[in-house]
């Protein structure tokens, strides 16, 4: 009897267990059963194209097939990795790395992009035994012009684990390809669209049984940029011909639209689109010329004499300078027990002449009159050491002189400095007045300031977005330009602009680069800069040569274009950078007249004729 009782008791336990599983926790098990057999296969949304202002394609996507592996369906990882290596030529290290990535937990991961028809056939042959291999149609980013405008356009790559934790990419999922630099990153949300998916039923081996539904992807928006492909080409070719690092940026001063931005050296965004190899990436990152850096916004330089324009406007804003004031050049100044030279002796020049001749002595004395506080207030007002607000990621702020900066410098260079040495001195004012010492804006900040001055105090936000074209799902998006006004009497603007006009057109420092265009009467105004890298008069090595600067705009009245050229270690501003800006303006003029702009490959500092287009396309 005891035995029967024991057996019945055991059956009661089984019945209770069945009741607990099938009645109490039923819903939970149903959910698990559903998860077991349902697979959601993402359909990647086509990324929006990027166009120049005239509709030329700068970036688009083309359909490619990728080999994917679904980790859930792997029976034997070693076997899968072996097949990947032997049949598809995927390195075991890369396969392992992809299979262990966080993305692999939630969706199939890409192990090979751009696969051939033969590869696709192999996948279908392997399907029964190895359902973990999938072929996915994945639009791949294509940059038809290669390195052209790479720093503006940026590149795409899979979103990293760290990025997913940041608010910038909180809407992304592991495995998504997102913009990692440039416009691709800044406007990633507009470009990316929304992935669709297929929900399918699979069996225990992950083999397809039937489809439940397909939700098509929503394509991203096409972006029309403010770039002008022709001007961009000219800018890049000018820099390339110099075989030096540097940047050229072109802006429409009336509205802040960026017509071109070149930074040398560049990189090929196509390499990233296909999944960049470690070796290629390491080469870019470790290159001492830093090709991934956008020099116009991610590098800071002493602006040299181009800074004098900002000094002049700042001093008039501070009320320490009237447009009619004449200051002494004196061939230099004695300050802090040393004599700091001017390049010549200009007597008692006016503001315009001081700018045109780039008289250092004049600006030394202005710098002392202005003082640190006024310099900080009014130079920041013109955007020096401030973010320009450009629609590109990771813009540098740069800096202008301050007591903290001085203290930091003293602490670094003179460990045993007395308190007196921490004080701001006239010598500091003198060096700062000509854009040396602690003055470090980005080239784009300089361009924005000069464009604003050309517009007589109207500063726009530089930007590349003309519009994101509307689709059925998304509305049109444009850039909201923040306009900043700096009030000064007309005579003040006249005097500065007169100086910049004379620098080019009336025997000033950039006289060799004057444009004479009788048809339109276009005249270039500008200011050269030759920024010392080391305090040595005669530099022998390339790294010790001065940076060559030129900022310019035109026409003199009602300006329509402004540009900056910075060539690292390029030497005199007038000899290298001024011709660059001139070439840009000439190309722009030709376009304006409806003439074709041929690719101009002008060697540096040649005669003006060589930089003119020779033949129609």
């Amino acid at each position, binding site marked *: 009897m005891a*035995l029967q009782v024991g057996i019945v008791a055991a059956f009661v336990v*089984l019945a209770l267990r*069945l009741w607990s599983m*099938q009645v109490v926790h039923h819903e939970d*098990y149903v959910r698990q059963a559903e998860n*077991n057999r349902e697979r959601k296969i993402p359909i990647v949304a086509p990324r929006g194209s990027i166009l120049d202002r005239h509709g030329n394609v700068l970036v688009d996507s083309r359909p490619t097939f990728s080999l994917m592996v679904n980790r859930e369906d792997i029976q034997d990882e070693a076997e899968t990795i072996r097949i990947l290596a032997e049949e598809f030529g995927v390195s075991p290290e890369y396969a392992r790395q992809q299979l262990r990535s966080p993305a692999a937990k939630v969706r199939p991961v890409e192990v090979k992009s751009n696969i051939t028809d033969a590869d696709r056939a192999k996948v279908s042959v392997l399907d029964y035994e190895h359902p973990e291999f999938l072929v996915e149609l994945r639009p791949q980013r294509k940059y038809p012009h290669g390195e052209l405008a790479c720093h503006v356009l940026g590149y795409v790559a899979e979103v990293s684990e760290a990025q997913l934790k940041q608010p910038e990419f909180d809407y992304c999922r592991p495995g998504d390809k997102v913009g990692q630099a440039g416009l691709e990153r800044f406007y990633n949300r507009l470009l990316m669209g929304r992935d669709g998916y297929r929900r399918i*039923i699979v069996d*225990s081996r992950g083999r397809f049984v039937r489809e439940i539904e397909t939700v098509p992807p929503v394509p991203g928006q096409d972006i029309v940029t403010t770039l002008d492909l022709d001007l961009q080409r000219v800018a890049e070719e000018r820099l390339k011909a110099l075989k030096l690092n540097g940047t050229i940026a072109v802006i429409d001063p009336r509205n802040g639209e960026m017509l071109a931005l070149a930074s040398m050296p560049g990189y090929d965004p196509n390499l990233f689109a296909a999944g960049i190899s470690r070796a290629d990436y390491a080469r870019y990152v470790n290159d001492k010329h830093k090709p991934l850096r956008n020099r116009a916004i991610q590098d800071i330089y002493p602006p040299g004499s181009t800074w004098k324009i900002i000094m002049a406007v700042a001093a008039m804003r501070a009320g320490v300078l009237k447009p009619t004031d004449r200051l002494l050049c004196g061939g230099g100044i004695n300050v802090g027990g040393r004599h700091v030279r001017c390049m010549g002796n200009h007597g008692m020049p006016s503001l315009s002449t001081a700018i045109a001749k780039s008289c250092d002595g004049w600006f030394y004395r202005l710098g002392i009159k202005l003082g640190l506080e006024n310099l900080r207030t009014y130079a920041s007002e013109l955007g020096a050491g401030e973010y320009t607000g450009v629609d590109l990621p990771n813009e540098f702020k740069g800096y202008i002189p301050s007591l903290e900066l001085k203290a930091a410098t003293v602490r670094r260079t003179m460990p045993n400095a007395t308190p007196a040495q921490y004080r701001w001195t006239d010598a500091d004012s003198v060096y700062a007045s000509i854009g040396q010492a602690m003055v470090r804006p980005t080239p784009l900040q300089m361009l924005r300031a000069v464009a604003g001055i050309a517009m007589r105090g109207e500063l726009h936000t530089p930007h590349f977005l003309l519009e994101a074209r509307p689709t059925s799902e998304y509305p049109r998006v444009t850039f909201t330009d923040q306009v900043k006004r700096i009030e000064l009497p007309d005579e003040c603007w006249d005097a500065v602009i007169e100086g910049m006009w004379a620098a080019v057109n009336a025997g000033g420092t950039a006289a060799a680069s004057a444009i004479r265009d009788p048809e339109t009467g276009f005249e270039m105004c500008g200011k050269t800069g030759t920024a010392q890298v080391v305090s040595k008069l005669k530099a022998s090595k390339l790294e010790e040569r001065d940076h060559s600067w030129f900022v310019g705009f035109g026409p003199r009245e009602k300006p329509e274009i402004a540009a900056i050229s910075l060539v690292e270690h390029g030497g005199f501003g007038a000899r290298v950078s001024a011709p660059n800006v001139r070439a840009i303006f000439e190309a722009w003029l030709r376009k304006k007249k409806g003439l074709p702009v041929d690719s101009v490959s002008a060697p540096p500092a040649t005669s003006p004729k060589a930089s003119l287009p020779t033949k129609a396309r």
Partner: protein
Amino acid sequence: MKSSLQESRWRDFDWPLLVAITLLCGISLLVLYSIDAAPGEATEWHQKFWFKQLLWCGIGYAAFFWVTRLNFQRVFDAAPYIYAGTLLLLLAVLFIGVKINGQRCWIRLGPLGTLQPSEFAKLGTILLVARILRPLGLQGLTWQQLALVAVVTLLPVVLTLQQPDTGTALTFFPPVLVMIFLSGIAIRWVVGVSLAGLILSPLLFVFLIEPRLKQYQRDRINVTWNAIFHPERLRDRQTREGFGYQTLQSMIAVGSGGILGRGFRGGTQSQGGFIPAHHSDFIASVIAEEFGLVGSLGVLALLLFIILHSANVAGRSRERFSMLVLAGHMTLLAFHVIVNFGMVVGLVPIIGIPLPLLSAGGSSLLMTLVSLGLVANVYERRFTN
């Protein structure tokens, strides 16, 4: 009592048992037919599980009816030869058996599939042990009897362990122990051994068994522990895709069945082939998924009826040998059902023993039907002798 012998035979026949057996065999065929639609199973109709099972049902029923007519004295006489025959088969399988999943448990048998000698050895052992235990002196069992029983039991156990098939080897012990206890062992012995077992078994497990377990056995015990006390732990990736896979998939099948089940061929777990061995050892998960709580409790009720009925018949038997055989068989049946169902619902570690009358597999079906034939045999004679 009616006049004709023939008439009385059919009137006294064990109809309730036959009905229960037939219902269970029918359910088995229905379920096997249901999962034959699943991908990855054999495609030719004559290779399908339901068809093979149907053939074995035919053989099993014939054996069942033949056994009901046997004179039990002849069974008693034949017991040593049956035992010797099954032992020979067990020995043979080690040399000529086919290897499946690293185990050599089966002998190939043409269109009928395979033969599993260990199933027959269980019956052979029960018969011989019952024969040894039948003579009962005034002092109860002698040491010689016990020693002989130990040898007779351990021989097939050792051979089965060679295959290796630990689960089946374990099933030899409960019937033999029950038969010994039913042989008038003094009550102080029963209590003493039970108490000693209660105290010693944890120690035995920790110091003797546990260190000798293979890693997969340890993992299975671990999974069962989690299935009972921490079901959520089964879902972490390593367990879900590793050693916990079968238990978890089986539990999902059972749980998702609900009260009425997902219907014939409606179980996603069974039809998707998510549960390994869902035709054999895990057929209960398919029943639970497709026919729900109602179906699984119905099957359990039928099985319980057969077990209690066997116990009942054993108790009414007027002869020690048949009583011991039936008791042994009843214990074996109960052990199989409880452990197999326990495996399916995650209460018992997976040890790979079939669900009698339901799991696909001819040897188990034939052995069970022959044993039940003995039950019907004794039932029929309940008024005679």
